């Protein structure tokens, strides 16, 4: 009893109570729905109201956490950990999802709210669908109740620890919450699929789950696009995709979600893939759970750039994953034989066969990415655990991309009943010419690798055939019929952008001295000035770039110290032109060393002075060796040859040390032509001196990574097209659903 009271006193009740109530109401709702399933129709109202109260609890808890963050209430451990007095207000809100607990809460919040829509649209399947769906939310809620975000500290600190400076970026406000909408959406087709299996009602779920699957695809795709922008435009990671485990964790469900969309399309159109779709809906959701496990359990802590620290929830995550896996496996195994299937009688050159082949290819891609991402886990039990780098993913996905481009290119000409290959080739004439022209252009440019040329040909062929079909569909029935083909056009564009920007980028790391032009490939870079911090505008560096063709522009990368953590933060700057991005990412800034260290005979430069260290003068003020031996104060001179403007003079500044009390005197010595020189230190071990010139400095130096990314715009542009096609398809599926729902029941 005392233990419970103790734990109560460490929790902030206005936040923790709604969470507990939500837990009770979700259990009540599941219980109510299960009564309905067993035939007690009267419990439906109870189950629905309980779900509403569950949502209310989650909303309240979220509002309380948001308010605590906005009020900077540092009594709350979570607020203390992720907020701080110096944090601008929009980041204060974004701190909500900066940590593990808050991001689980936002995931749960979206899931709970989406459930209200699921409840309304599930039709007769509602009790089972909602029962299973609420079960998926319950899993997250369990973690939150255990790892409560409302834990209070014993004392109230005056300041929080602040938000990780890497996360203080505009994308932080928008990217993570959208990602979690995508994760939350993935549970909906899963619930529909399992409910259909449970009820042995194998028809109808696909139509209802279809718009949800499309929405999940769209939202997750948008989130991935934003993450790419974030990595590329502000983090300065040099690229939009690094095959990092956290990135892969969102990519795998997206690919599987894409496969699911095509599976559902096949089922709706031809009654095919009925068994497979159950599998796909389960796999998509389970891959979200698996990704969450990989990135949040701490198993990858030594391998990933941005995985979370371990909260001790690995056990929970594994338990959740395994129980949903077992539930899906059990339902599928017991129903497998009963699920009606249509016999596969498609000829090879038919839409059905090509769709099957594309879905297999995409699934294989998802599997190899999952295997690569799991490398640290898979090799854990070997002698030396390891990981695979981007080379692995690029290499294994290359043949898949080629195959998918080929399939995509043919699909617009295929019908369900099959086509003559010769007929397909004949209709591919113009797209083929387009592809050939682009391939020749690529070869003329700099593409020499045969596989890359084939890649260019197939990708541009797919782009052209699908574009042709999109236009034809648009003419025939309006743009809304053309969503799928439009997305495929986007895929062709993206593939071209991928190849150009990743395999043909040129990167050079250079150090620029302020004011001294330096040539990098076809451009001359000059570090012109350092711009001091102004308000929220961080310190930036101005670099003038002059191209060989005469084009002149400035870039302003930022490199600044985070005041709180003393971490050096870098933001790249990008000059975008239609065919190329000129990407300048700062690595290091040296404000100009006022000192140089010289060994005997060595020469160095400070300001406009060339200084050569000739030798030590041990007789500068009495015999230094004798003084040292006697333990008295001794004086050493450093004989320097100083050259300024062609005039060389020899001077001997002094270094005086009193061994008794350790005091050092270094009288400055006037330089011919102005300024003073000082021996700032002597390194007895190496026989080197440190020389400092008062009133002079070396020019500041800026180290940057200069990268040229050809055609990277195609990646973004292609993704926009894919998503636009997805929007059209979603609208179309929703229309179809509405039309059917208004039909009189037959």
């Amino acid at each position, binding site marked *: 009893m005392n233990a419970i009271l103790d734990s109560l006193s460490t929790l902030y009740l206005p936040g923790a109570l709604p969470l507990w109530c939500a837990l009770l109401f979700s259990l009540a709702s599941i219980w109510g729905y299960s009564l309905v399933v067993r035939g007690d129709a009267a419990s439906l109202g109870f189950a629905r109201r309980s779900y509403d109260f569950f949502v209310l609890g989650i909303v309240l808890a979220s509002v309380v956490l948001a308010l605590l963050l906005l009020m900077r209430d540092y009594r709350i451990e979570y607020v203390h950990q992720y907020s701080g007095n110096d944090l601008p207000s929009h980041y204060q809100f974004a701190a909500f999802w900066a940590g593990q607990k808050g991001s689980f809460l936002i995931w749960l919040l979206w899931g709970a709210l989406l459930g209200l829509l699921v409840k309304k649209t599930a039709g007769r399947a509602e009790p089972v669908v909602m029962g299973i769906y609420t079960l998926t939310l319950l899993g997250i809620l369990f973690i939150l109740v255990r790892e409560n975000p409302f834990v209070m500290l014993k004392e109230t600190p005056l300041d929080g620890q602040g938000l990780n400076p890497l996360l203080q970026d505009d994308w932080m406000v928008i990217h993570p919450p959208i990602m979690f909408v995508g994760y939350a959406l993935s549970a909906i087709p899963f619930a529909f699929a399992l409910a259909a299996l449970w009820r042995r009602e194998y028809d109808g779920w696909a139509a209802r789950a279809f718009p949800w699957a499309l929405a999940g695809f769209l939202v997750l795709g948008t989130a991935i696009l934003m993450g790419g922008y974030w990595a590329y435009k502000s983090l300065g990671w040099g690229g939009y995709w690094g095959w990092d485990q956290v990135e892969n964790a969102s990519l795998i469900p997206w690919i599987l979600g894409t496969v699911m969309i095509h599976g559902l399309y096949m089922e709706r159109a031809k009654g095919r893939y009925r068994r497979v779709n159950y599998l796909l809906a389960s796999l998509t959701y389970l891959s979200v759970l698996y990704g969450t496990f990989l990135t949040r359990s701490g198993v990858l802590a030594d391998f990933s750039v941005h995985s979370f620290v371990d909260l001790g929830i690995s056990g929970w995550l594994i338990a959740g994953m395994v129980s949903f896996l077992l539930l899906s496996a059990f339902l599928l195994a017991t129903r497998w034989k009963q699920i009606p299937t249509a016999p596969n009688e498609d000829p090879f050159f038919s839409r059905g066969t090509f769709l099957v082949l594309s879905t*297999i290819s995409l699934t294989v891609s998802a599997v190899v990415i999952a295997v690569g991402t799991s490398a640290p886990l898979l090799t854990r039990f070997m002698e030396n655990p390891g990981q695979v780098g981007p080379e692995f993913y690029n290499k294994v996905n290359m043949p898949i991309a080629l195959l998918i481009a080929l399939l995509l290119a043919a699909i617009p000409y295929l019908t369900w009943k099959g086509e003559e290959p010769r007929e397909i080739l004949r209709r591919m004439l113009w797209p083929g010419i387009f592809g050939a022209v682009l391939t020749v252009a690529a070869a003329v440019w700099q593409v020499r690798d045969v596989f890359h040329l084939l890649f260019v040909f197939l990708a541009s062929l797919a782009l052209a055939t699908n574009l042709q079909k999109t236009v034809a569909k648009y003419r025939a029935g309006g743009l809304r019929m053309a969503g799928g083909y439009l997305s495929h056009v986007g895929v062709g564009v993206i593939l071209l952008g991928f190849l150009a920007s990743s395999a043909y980028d040129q990167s050079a*790391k250079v150090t620029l001295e302020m004011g001294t032009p330096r040539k990098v490939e076809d451009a001359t870079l000059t570090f012109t000035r350092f711009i001091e911090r102004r308000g929220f505008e961080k310190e930036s560096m101005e670099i003038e770039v002059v191209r060989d063709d005469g084009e002149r522009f400035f870039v302003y990368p930022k490199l600044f110290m985070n005041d709180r953590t003393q971490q050096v933060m*870098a933001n790249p700057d990008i000059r975008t032109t239609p065919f190329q991005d000129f990407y300048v990412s700062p690595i290091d800034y040296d404000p100009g060393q006022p000192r140089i260290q010289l060994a005997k005979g060595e020469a160095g430069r400070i300001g406009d002075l060339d200084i050569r260290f000739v030798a030590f003068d041990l007789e500068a003020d009495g015999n230094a060796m004798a003084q040292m031996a006697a333990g008295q104060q001794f004086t050493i001179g450093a004989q320097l040859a100083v050259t300024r403007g062609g005039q060389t003079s020899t001077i001997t500044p002094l270094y005086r040390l009193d061994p008794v009390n350790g005091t050092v005197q270094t009288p400055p010595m006037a330089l011919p032509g102005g300024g003073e020189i000082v021996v700032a230190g002597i390194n007895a071990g190496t026989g080197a001196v440190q020389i400092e010139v008062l009133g002079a400095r070396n020019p500041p130096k800026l*180290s940057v990574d200069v990268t040229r990314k050809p055609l990277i715009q195609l990646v973004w542009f292609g993704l926009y097209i894919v998503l636009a096609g997805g929007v059209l398809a979603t609208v179309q599926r929703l229309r179809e659903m509405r039309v059917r729902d208004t039909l009189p029941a037959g």
Partner: protein
Amino acid sequence: MNKKNRYYLLGGILLLAFAGFSFSSFKETLTPYVSYEQAREGDRMVQVAGALEKGSTSYKDVEESLYFTLHDPKTRETLRVRYKGLRPANFEEAISIVAIGRFDESAKQFEANKLLVKCPSKYQGAEVKEYG
């Protein structure tokens, strides 16, 4: 054997071939964590981890390379590393460094082409940054 089965067989063979290709790529690109002793055998890409030995860093402008010594707190072994590239920010403050590369037998040093630098951070324990 009818036509359909022949397609399935072909598909199966292709999938198997791809699985083999993936497996060999996996083995080839896998960079295992190894001890310094194993790294010195130097026949493949590996990663080594350790702490930065104080005062061991030097930068050679001419070859644009960073030299430093890693030491393993457990075995107390050390390893001299050369990283061809610019000195990462906050390098001296690193609490641990992972170097990915291979051992160069003739130069008796580890040639790193990528560094993961873990810097102290009050936030989530530490901040890892990638270079290379």
